[in-house]
């Protein structure tokens, strides 16, 4: 879609001068003002903008907090206290940053499930999707590194447990895992050296995410946005200019999101954290019940479901890595789950399995919890490896609307399948868009 004809016309002599040298205003106009967006986007499509807001908010508050935070084992815990009590508006900035990570993950999970439901990962958006998987990985790494910084009990033991995941490699090559873990720690246990390097990396990774996001948006603007029908934009009436239509809608959703965000920041700043993290890190005492932040719970449940150290670690990383392969695992002739009568049920089952794994991850690893964690872990992988290819192959989609316009105006389903064009990913790539 980035090849839609440019409608930018420099109005002043200065604008013209710039346009001939560095046409940034032209790019902004063509990509973010006059960019054609499907006219049927629903509110689930506003989360891209919300996530951009989250990233910027985390960057700005993080840069500010780094002006006051001290990354040493002796002073880290007290410096967070200092930020919350002494620094002007530190109570607000610290709460925004800590709560912001939860809001970021909340938004990214909605964004991911929207992509899963409407088939946003299908051709020609595979690279767009895979970039998203890398962004998710970088987000998880950043959140984990950041969680170590307050240097409370949960911070310390989260670092200990998660870095120890690599020690499972000892069962492959004796000494390999221990070597990696000591390299990560910079010592023979988690120490101030670990904290200092984690702070450095926690500052670095958000800028890596920022770069990935630029590529993600670039890829989005080449393929164009997916939409609830999964059909391509074929005629001018299928789309609306991004400004003001999509921008206004994004703004409404962002306001609603910021209200929730602000509610947590102002009224429940520590609700999403753990009481144990108000106790300074103590290498001699492990808290009785260690749980990660809520956004890691499903993965934590998968880790603990596998009764083998290395196997659990592999399963946990595989649960994210497998997302990169779903553009090719999904064999359905249509993109959107809206037109998939069988797969629809599996989608909701998958969402339920993820929520259930989240619940189970917060429970002790014993008895019935482990049993159910294994069931849902099995389904998590089966969904991608069995349901996606098999249901996609055998299912007959319901009739697709003839176009986005038809879907919007409520016309009865017209030609479906191959002649409809956009609904079929393979056909979509073959048929150039008519704009």
């Amino acid at each position, binding site marked *: 879609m980035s090849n839609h004809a440019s409608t930018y016309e420099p109005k002043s002599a200065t604008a013209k001068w710039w346009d001939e040298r560095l046409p940034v205003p032209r790019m902004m106009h063509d990509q973010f003002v006059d960019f054609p967006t499907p*006219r*049927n986007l629903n509110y689930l499509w506003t989360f891209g903008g919300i996530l951009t807001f989250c990233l910027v908010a985390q960057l700005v508050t993080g840069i500010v907090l780094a002006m006051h935070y001290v990354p040493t084992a002796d002073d880290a815990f007290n410096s967070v206290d200092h930020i919350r009590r002494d*620094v*002007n508006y530190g109570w607000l900035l610290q709460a925004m940053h800590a709560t912001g990570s939860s809001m970021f993950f909340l938004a990214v999970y909605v964004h991911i499930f929207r992509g899963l439901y409407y088939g946003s990962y299908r051709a020609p958006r595979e690279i767009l999707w895979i970039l998203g998987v890398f962004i998710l990985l970088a987000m998880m790494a950043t959140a984990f590194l950041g969680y170590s910084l307050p240097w409370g009990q949960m911070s310390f033991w989260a670092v200990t447990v998660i870095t120890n995941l690599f020690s499972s490699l000892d069962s492959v090559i004796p000494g390999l895992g221990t070597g990696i873990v000591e390299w990560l720690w910079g010592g023979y246990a988690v120490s101030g050296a670990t904290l200092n390097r984690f702070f450095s990396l926690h500052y670095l990774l958000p800028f890596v995410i920022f770069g990935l996001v630029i590529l993600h948006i670039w890829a989005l603007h080449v393929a164009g946005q997916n939409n609830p029908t999964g059909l391509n934009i074929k005629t001018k009436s299928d789309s609306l200019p991004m400004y*003001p239509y999509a921008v206004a809608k994004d703004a409404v959703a962002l306001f609603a999101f910021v209200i929730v965000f602000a509610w947590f920041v102002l009224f429940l700043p520590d609700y999403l954290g753990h009481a144990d993290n108000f106790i300074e890190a103590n290498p001699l005492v492990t808290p009785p019940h260690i749980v990660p932040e809520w956004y890691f719970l499903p993965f934590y449940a998968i880790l603990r479901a596998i009764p083998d150290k290395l196997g659990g670690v592999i399963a946990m990383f595989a649960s994210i890595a497998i997302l990169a392969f779903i553009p090719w695992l999904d064999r359905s002739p249509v993109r959107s789950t809206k037109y998939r009568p069988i797969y629809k049920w599996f989608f909701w089952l998958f969402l339920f399995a993820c929520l259930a794994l989240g619940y189970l991850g917060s429970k002790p690893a014993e008895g019935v919890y482990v049993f159910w964690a294994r069931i849902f872990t099995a389904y998590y992988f089966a969904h991608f490896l069995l349901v996606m290819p098999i249901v996609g192959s055998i299912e007959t989609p319901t009739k697709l609307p003839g176009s986005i316009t038809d879907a919007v105006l409520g016309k009865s389903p017209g030609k479906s399948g191959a002649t409809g064009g956009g609904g079929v990913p393979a056909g979509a790539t073959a048929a150039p868009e008519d704009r």
Partner: protein
Amino acid sequence: MANLWQFAPLKFSTRLHAFLRNLGLKAAVLLATGNMACGTLLFDDDPLEGGRSMTADVEDPNRRDILVVAASAFSAVGAASLIWPFVHQMNPDAGAQALASAEFDLAPVQVGQAITVMWRGKPVFIRHRTAEEIEAAKKVPVEDLPDPLSRNDNEPGTPATDANRTLEGHEKWLVMVGICTHLGCIPKGQTLADSKGDFGGWFCPCHGSHYDTAGRIRKGPAPRNLDIPPYTFLSDTKIRIG
């Protein structure tokens, strides 16, 4: 342009419309903004009212105007006020402000000796001046001084006489922030081995500023006399700075 309503269910907007009407917001916004015909409308029609053109006029602003103006105003004020915490966080924090005053015992400081104490992270020179030093300082006519002001936070705006550079009844004690008013170096002159400059007070080695026995600039690039912090004597030998 009915397609706009793909973005919001009609029912909700109908109810919102009725709600705003009941509140009399139309009138309120009209009064507040005065001019609704400024052409800033995001949306150019109103399906509920039969798709009017975008020339909304002063007499009849539509619901879109109210929403756009109200939302824009709220977000502009909100965003602007959110900038302040991000600026103010760099100002001295409560911990730094708590160091704003400090007390010192001057009993061990003999005549002719000087000590340097820390106040707000800055060096403060306290010299127990000899009678000759006080006499030398008093002899200088204020008109001959490059900086005629006392620069004394306890007596702001007064001329730079020796009396105005000290506290009444405690003239033997000269208390100054020991930072050269040129570019912030620390002048020499506190210890016996130091060069005290051409006027027997202090000498800044960075760019050659000479201060006299009342800490007044006499020669060199410094523009002002050494600053005198706010201080009081709690007793004859006990001082509180700040």
